[in-house]
């Protein structure tokens, strides 16, 4: 099966001469067909530039971008069968919702009636039936988001690109939309490529994700792979609320002198006597279903999850730490 999108040693530089910045630095990437693929990274890591390389709003300086096997280097955005949900939604304020959704069909020459029917069907799919006559300005943020989604999907693109689509929504709506997007992707079978800086979003929605750092991909894998076995310190730091252990602490825990990660859920508080690691509680954060307790041990500060219902320690009290040795993950790179 041809992958939906491939990057072969793609570089994109901004600026000129010695001051040039490699926003995307020799990136190799494969997005399988039908995947919900997330590109995760902090701002400036190159993930959005990668998305724009797929949509055609950026051109690679080196390397090749292929969509379903076809090199798109010379193909302008309007001829790529790829649609984007923009971060600010970019709905046309002078058109009503129906005409916004039907825009892609209109510019491709579909007659008014069939394109309005298709737009209405799409609006129904995103649960906005009956909103066709409204202007974008009369909609809430979540509704605009759905219109943008309907507009991007109505032309049945081979790949749907989503640029931080949920960034402007409040938490509850965001979680609901995450589920809906996931369900929609499964139902339509279209390849989704999502750009986000929110690791929770990437982990919960995607079935594959790439973690970006400084224009390069730090790791590609399934959410579980990335979360449980981060390849680098950066990935562990960025993706998880995971503890990153310097070599000295790994050694104290009985491992080799290498950087390692240890999930907070895999640590338990014990009485201080006789523990391999012990330290004072520096902070306690209540998370609802659990409390995250920060314990300062020699060489590191570790987060420990204390499930709700168990006794939460006082800040300043000293505790020992026990852990599940199988959960200790050694990283390949520092």
């Amino acid at each position, binding site marked *: 099966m041809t992958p939906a999108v491939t990057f072969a040693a793609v570089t994109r530089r901004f600026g000129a001469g010695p001051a040039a910045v490699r926003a995307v630095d020799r990136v190799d990437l494969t997005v399988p067909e039908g995947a919900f693929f997330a590109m995760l990274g902090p701002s400036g890591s190159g993930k959005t530039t990668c998305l724009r390389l797929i949509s055609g709003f950026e051109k690679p300086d080196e390397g090749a971008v292929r969509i379903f096997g076809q090199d798109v280097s010379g193909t302008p955005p309007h001829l790529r069968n790829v649609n984007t949900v923009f971060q600010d939604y970019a709905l046309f304020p002078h058109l009503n919702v129906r005409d916004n959704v039907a825009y892609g069909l209109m510019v491709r020459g579909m007659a008014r009636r069939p394109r309005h029917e298709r737009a209405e069907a799409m609006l129904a799919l995103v649960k906005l039936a009956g909103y066709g006559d409204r202007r974008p300005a009369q909609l809430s943020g979540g509704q605009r988001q759905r219109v943008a989604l309907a507009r991007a999907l109505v*032309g049945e693109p081979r790949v749907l690109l989503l640029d931080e689509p949920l960034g402007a929504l409040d938490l509850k709506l965001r979680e609901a939309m995450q589920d809906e997007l996931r369900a929609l992707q499964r139902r339509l079978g279209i390849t989704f490529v999502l750009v986000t800086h929110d690791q929770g979003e990437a982990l919960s929605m995607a079935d594959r994700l790439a973690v970006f750092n400084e224009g390069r991909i730090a790791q590609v894998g399934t959410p579980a792979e990335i979360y449980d076995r981060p390849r680098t310190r950066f990935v562990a730091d960025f993706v998880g609320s995971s503890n990153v252990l310097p070599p000295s602490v790994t050694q104290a825990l009985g491992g080799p002198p290498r950087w390692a990660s240890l999930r907070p859920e895999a640590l338990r508080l014990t009485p201080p006597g006789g523990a391999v690691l012990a330290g004072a509680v520096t902070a306690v954060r209540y998370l609802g279903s659990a409390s995250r307790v920060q314990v300062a041990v020699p060489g590191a500060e570790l987060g420990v999850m204390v499930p709700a219902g168990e006794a939460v320690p006082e800040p300043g009290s000293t505790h020992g730490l026990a852990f599940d040795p199988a959960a200790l993950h050694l990283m390949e790179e520092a």
Partner: protein
Amino acid sequence: MTAAILPARGLGDRLTAVFWRRPRLLLGLLLGPPLLWLGVVYLGSLAALLVQSVFAIDEFSGLVVYEPTLKTYAELARPANLDIILRTLVMAAAVTLACAVVAFPIALCAARHATGRWKAVFYLGVMLPLWSSYLVKVYAWKLILAKEGIVTWAAEGIGAGPILNLVLSLPGIGGNSLSTSYIGTFLVFVYVWLPFMILPMQAALERVPASMIEASADLGATRGQTFRTVVLPLALPGVVAGSIFTFSLTMGDYIIPQIVGTSARFIGLAVYQLQGTAGNLPLAAAFAVVPIAIMVVYLAVARRMGAFDAL
């Protein structure tokens, strides 16, 4: 421990406190003088002039008869006066159209591509002509367009003399030379009012987010489709604002047609002559109503066409 309320440091603190308690006071103080100026001095005198139009002049004594009548408006319908109105209207429309066509690429370039230093160069380039006297510019154009001027000289130099002569021989708008033809008047109008079209257009285009143009291309639109269906509708309020400037400025101007062009009269010139030498204030006032009426109709049409929907 400091007190919960800090001591006032002086008049500024106390005044700010007063304005905080009475927000409308500051608004009133700021708006009062200009509204007084605009409302009483400007609109008042304009109204006083326009009221004159419902009076008429006594043909024997030459004195204004202060009895409401529509006689003066009927006079506007005389062929000679209708000619003036039509000539002005056509000129204003042509100037506005030409300004819009010339200004659009400039405004688009400034709004989309110019940043930092280039933006400053753009503003300077657009505004610079406004710094010199209007009369100087018009007389300069008279020389440029004169038979012995640089345009004729250059046209002959590159062998385009026959083309120029062909243009000048066009019936109705041609003439002896560019500076004595309607074409000359038109060119000078376009030059003089162009900044008033560029600036609002640029402001409107700048407000069109880049992502909207990208969204259009993303959905499959060509550049032409994006221009027609996204850029133009969104920039239309700016285009209309600019056209209000160029249209009304052309309709009211009485200097350019006097200096460059045929000596045929335009509305501005007619008003100027009627209220001055002729002493026919009612007819001058009636003429002054014409551009106002045209602008009202123009704005109503623009509104109906949805020019302000994107505001």
